[in-house]
């Protein structure tokens, strides 16, 4: 009997169509329906999330701004041996491409060139104006007479970094490296090395903030999850109240609290704990950033912790006690392992938010509390060096991805629970 069945081909429906084909057909409709249901969200995410991220990633390596303005110059430039000054031909091609450039190309190109070597910006602007009066060669001489920067090989060598349509320059810049004039990767000048320190600082602050949020948030979440509803609601409002207050207001309130002539220091001086001249510097430094960010991000720790702890049945603790464990042992062996998903979610959430934070460090960070976010904001708004912004952002993104990956490997992402 069983022999007969195993030897037959695919199972057929009563109509003689193979069962799998028939099943697929029946399910296609469902699939299309499901797809149509997610389509709005999918396109929304595509437009508002994936496209901008793709754009950002492309900006971080895109270096076509100049190539399109000086195509001929770069052709002849490639032949130059990078010794001394380039030939008259290079000068001549450059001259005409500057002179005949239209619109704002020169302006945009000069901004980019200025990243490689400060001074290009004004040099091109001035030259564009003055080149109009020059009708014939020798161009090298005349250009140098307009501005002696044209006779400085460093400017010409700096162009070499921009020959290719893509560049790693922004990424190098983001980790305190750079191309030298021969396109070797070297360390940034010592007094311009800021990003590596900032990266370390950003991580340090984020880890500290996450740690303090956990230390402060865990007991309060435990209390929230175990108190009767009427008390826990009140307490929950206390936790969330700052959440509903403007970020700026809260930050400023902290300034009033923590500054040298602020509430905390005044209290300590008044109660003779501190001498008047030994007031603590709690504001405008890293300490302030950690304190204020901890307070601001606390709800992001408490909420996932609370919602996970809420699902931990109180009978687990009772059972553990009943089985002979001391309250502490029961907590450590039974309650804590069950709250791990909330701890993971809270920590990951707080860390991710903290690592990209910039308003609070900006306001209370002072001289050593600035984080990567502040530099992104600075380049985004002030220097317009969006390539550098993009590379800083992309590195942040990559770090988060690595973190997420490592987390998934070690703890397992399915252990994350937000409620």
């Amino acid at each position: 009997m069983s022999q007969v069945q195993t030897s037959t081909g695919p199972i057929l429906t009563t109509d003689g169509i193979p069962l799998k084909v028939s099943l697929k057909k029946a399910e296609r409709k469902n699939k299309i329906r499901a797809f149509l249901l997610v389509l709005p969200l999918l396109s929304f995410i595509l437009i508002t999330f994936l496209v901008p991220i793709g754009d950002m990633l492309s900006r971080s390596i895109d270096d076509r701004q100049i190539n399109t303005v000086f195509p001929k110059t770069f052709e002849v430039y490639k032949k130059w041996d990078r010794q001394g000054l380039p030939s008259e031909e290079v000068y001549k091609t450059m001259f005409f491409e500057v002179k005949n450039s239209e619109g704002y190309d020169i302006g945009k190109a000069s901004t980019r060139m200025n990243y490689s070597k400060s001074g290009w910006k004004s040099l091109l602007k001035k030259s564009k104006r003055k080149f109009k009066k020059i009708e014939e060669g020798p161009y090298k001489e005349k250009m140098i007479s307009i501005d002696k920067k044209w006779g400085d090989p460093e400017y010409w060598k700096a162009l070499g970094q921009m020959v290719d349509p893509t560049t790693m320059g922004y990424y190098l810049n983001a980790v305190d490296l750079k191309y030298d004039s021969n396109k070797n990767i070297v360390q940034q000048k010592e007094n311009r090395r800021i990003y590596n320190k900032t990266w370390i600082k950003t991580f340090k602050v984020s880890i500290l903030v996450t740690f303090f949020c956990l230390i402060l948030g865990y007991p309060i979440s435990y209390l929230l999850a175990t108190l009767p509803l009427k008390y826990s609601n009140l307490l929950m409002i206390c936790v969330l109240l700052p959440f509903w207050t403007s970020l700026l207001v809260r930050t400023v309130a902290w300034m009033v609290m923590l500054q040298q002539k602020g509430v905390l220091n005044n209290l300590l001086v008044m109660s003779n704990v501190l001498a008047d001249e030994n007031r603590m510097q709690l504001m405008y430094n890293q300490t302030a950033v950690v304190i204020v960010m901890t307070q601001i991000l606390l709800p992001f720790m408490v909420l996932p912790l609370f919602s996970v702890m809420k699902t931990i049945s109180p009978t687990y603790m009772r059972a553990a006690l009943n089985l002979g464990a001391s309250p502490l042992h029961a907590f450590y062996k039974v309650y804590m392992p069950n709250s791990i998903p909330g701890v993971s979610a809270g920590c990951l959430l707080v860390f991710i938010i903290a690592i990209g934070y910039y308003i609070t460090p900006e306001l209370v960070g002072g001289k050593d509390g600035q984080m990567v976010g502040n530099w992104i904001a600075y380049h985004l708004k002030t220097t317009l060096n969006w390539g550098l912004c993009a590379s800083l952002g992309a590195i942040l993104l990559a770090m988060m991805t690595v973190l997420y990956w490592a987390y998934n490997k070690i703890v397992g992402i399915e252990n994350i629970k937000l409620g």
Partner: protein
Amino acid sequence: MSQKDSFVKFEKVDKSYDGEILVVKDLNLDVPKGEFLTMLGPSGSGKTTVLMMLAGFETPTNGEIYLDGNPISSIPPNKRGIGMVFQNYALFPHMTVKENLAFPLEVRKMEQSEIDKKVSNALAMVELQDFGNRMPLQLSGGQQQRVALARSLVFEPRLVLMDEPLGALDKNLREQMQYEIKHIHEKIGITVVYVTHDQSEALTMSNRIAVFNDGKIQQISSPDVLYEKPNSSFVAQFIGENNQLRGKVKSISGENCIITTDSGDDVHALKININNNGDGSLVSLRPERVAINSSENFENNFEAKVKELIYLGDHIRSRVEVCGNDQFIVKIPNSYKGANLKEGATVKLSWKASDSRALDLN
């Protein structure tokens, strides 16, 4: 009962949560060693509170609880050495079955080899030898229940408490588990205090049943006594199916009495907890003790009208109107005699005075 006989003793125990309402009132209870005692009652009757006080999760507001002769009110729950099976099993979800079972042994700092032996014995006892490395959530409800049972017994406690342990199981499984628990109890002879609101569960398993209502024990007896001889109308109603005839005491003579029902019929019954002529009373009568169209004559014979017939296979349940009560149930065995009743027919009902119990009106 002397101190020695009572392994667990509640003495004048009161419990209030808010200082206004007593959820347990003046509880006095003795449980001898090896007994399977069930506390049965509707929700809110205080039975779970009693159990929690025994386990140490609640403190009595007044009175004292003794375990093996020693007061235990000041001993924390983890030092009482009482096993407990919780309502939803409370198996630790992050530990395997084996780890769950080993937990009480580890906190007692037993040697690993000893632990392994006890754990595998406990698994064998509940027939789950092959499931030791599963996580609790990978088990079915019945299997989880058995693990919980094994865990409460593995450290060989003197007393096991069970708080509605079968409430989450479906009917068939529940019945099967009732027998298993009963057998385990019989095999190891441990003292069990069991809480349930399911009377058939209580009847199946217990040596004695304490019926709780309103913070008090209404009656404490063996299952058969409780069923056959309820001494209050609450117990009569709560345990098993029950017909009730409402009326007033007409006369009392010795153990017997006559109650005149509201419809004017005189019913002969046993005097249980009524005192004076003219008092209100409920006459309680089990459906299976009523004969229908019987040739025999008992003390009570009435004509009744058949209102409804429900076919239940082994018996036919008929609702009739008698003595002014139209919710009166009679169970007719589906025997070779056949019943051949029709709805609307008039039949003769008869029962013994000794089967009808005149109780208080509450």
